[in-house]
């Protein structure tokens, strides 16, 4: 996968080789530079790609997003899985009174989120986390209010998540990719908000809990732990994010 092969020097290196090399050298380097803290030790215990799988998610293990840029991409992949699963359900069991325009928009959004999810899955390859076990028991899919309120929450959270994750990325290429996606999430968020209440597309005061700043007209921005705390309502798996970069 070209995207993950930025430092490719030999034609026959595989994606996994590159990732393994990257992780290995990072670990060694952290140790060398005397900056190896608890996170580096944890990484060394969980394999080269920093990715642990827990198929049922019920044990004490969990889904480990990993570290570095790969960890951030897995973080985005996790959120996109959530969104794609949600909209897939929305379109499988349309709420009562879904009109043609809403159906057209929600189908498009579903397809965009599936595209995002599948893109991350393909790009991450063997470093990708497993498919998450979603928990939508708090959502009433037959209710327009419930569905749109959840959609709004997901889209606004997604925007804040990408905005907060940008600074955690090392690769400019990944930053651009994240930028390509976050503006589409913001377009979704604005549309969903307008479906709920026309004109609320950029009600930044209501987004203050997600880090928005009304005075400067800045949208939300949250760190991964803040985002995952909110998203955990909708995921049965325990997501391990403590190896993600923090600055």
């Amino acid at each position, binding site marked *: *996968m*070209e*995207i993950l092969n*930025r*430092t490719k020097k030999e034609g026959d290196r595989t994606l996994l080789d590159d990732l393994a*090399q990257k992780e290995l*050298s*990072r670990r*060694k*380097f*952290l*140790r*060398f530079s005397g*900056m190896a803290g608890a996170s580096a030790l944890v990484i060394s215990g969980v394999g080269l790609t920093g990715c642990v799988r827990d198929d049922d998610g019920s044990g004490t293990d969990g889904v480990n997003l990993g570290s570095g840029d790969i960890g951030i991409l897995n973080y985005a992949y996790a959120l996109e899985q959530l969104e794609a699963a949600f909209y897939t359900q929305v379109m499988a069991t349309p709420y009562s009174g879904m009109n043609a325009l809403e159906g057209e928009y929600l189908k*498009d959004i579903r*397809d*965009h989120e*599936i*595209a*995002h*999810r*599948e*893109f991350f899955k*393909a*790009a991450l390859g063997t470093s990708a986390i497993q498919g998450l076990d979603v928990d939508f028991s708090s959502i009433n899919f037959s209710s327009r209010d419930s569905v749109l309120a959840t959609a709004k929450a997901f889209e606004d959270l997604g925007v804040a998540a*990408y*905005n907060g994750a*940008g*600074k955690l*990325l*090392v690769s400019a290429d990944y*930053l*651009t*990719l994240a*930028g*390509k*996606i*976050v*503006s*589409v999430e*913001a*377009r*979704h*968020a*604005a*549309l969903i908000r*307008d479906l709920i209440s*026309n*004109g609320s*597309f*950029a009600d*930044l005061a209501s987004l203050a809990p997600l880090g928005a*700043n009304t005075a*400067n*007209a*800045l*949208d*939300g*921005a949250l760190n991964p732990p803040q985002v995952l705390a909110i998203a955990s309502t909708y995921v049965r798996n325990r997501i391990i994010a403590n190896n993600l*970069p923090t600055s």
Partner: protein
Amino acid sequence: MNVHNLLHEIENVDPEVYDRLDSRRKVMKRFSFIGKTLALAAVPSALGSMFNKAYGQTNDDVKDVLLFAYLLENLEAEFYKGVVGTFAAIGVPAGPAQGALTVIRDHEVAHVAFLKTVLNSLGVTPPVYTAASFDFTGGNGSRMGPFAAAASNYGVMLAVAQTFEDTGVRAYKGQAPRLINNNDVLTAALQIHAVEARHASHIRQMRRNLASGSLVPAGVTLQPWITLAQSGIDTGNAGANAAIQMSYAGEEVVSQATVPITNIGGAVISANEASEAFDEPLTKAQVTAIVDPFVV
């Protein structure tokens, strides 16, 4: 500590050290202890150039991006200030339409003030822009450009607004990598970027909902997101259409980082949706060419 030996040691444990020096800011942070023991002037020239590549233009990049953003935000702010001040002349209906345009104006004005504060904090005094700095007819100062009707035609005004918003989104996206070494400015830029995308989404809905004079070409379904390289605008003026199209060039891509998005993973994803799912960046040069007719 001898720098040469130090780097040799680093190379032993991290074969990618030189790649990292070239492109990875996080590792540069981990190298920061070098600067504490040795001045950069003492570093061998080859190494110095690597450091220079990673560090040298960083602050200049940030300032340049902020000044560029400041121009674009002033363009938008002055545009919407003019719109809000002439609702009647343009024919903007009272109610939600005027409300939305007022909200957007307030955001753009806030962005201008915020960017000015950030620039000042970096010791930069940005140029002074006023309404007279811009020509919203797209006439490069002649005030007789192809978008002159925007001052008196609601549909044309919204078409210009959509183009400005979509361009703004793509402009910030294109500049973000230049901010990668400054977490605070990068995050703020991303936060502005998302607000512009929300504006674009709403303006597009406003255009779609116009009963007449929307300028949406027959056969095109205008949506809150960008489909292929479609502007969704036909002004009836070839020059104006060509100018608008510059803001959508490149949006048609259906492959990301060599991954084909159409029908990805066995899902039924059309080319339209594949293109919509990702907004594309514009370079500074592209954006400059787009806004040039609007700057006096």
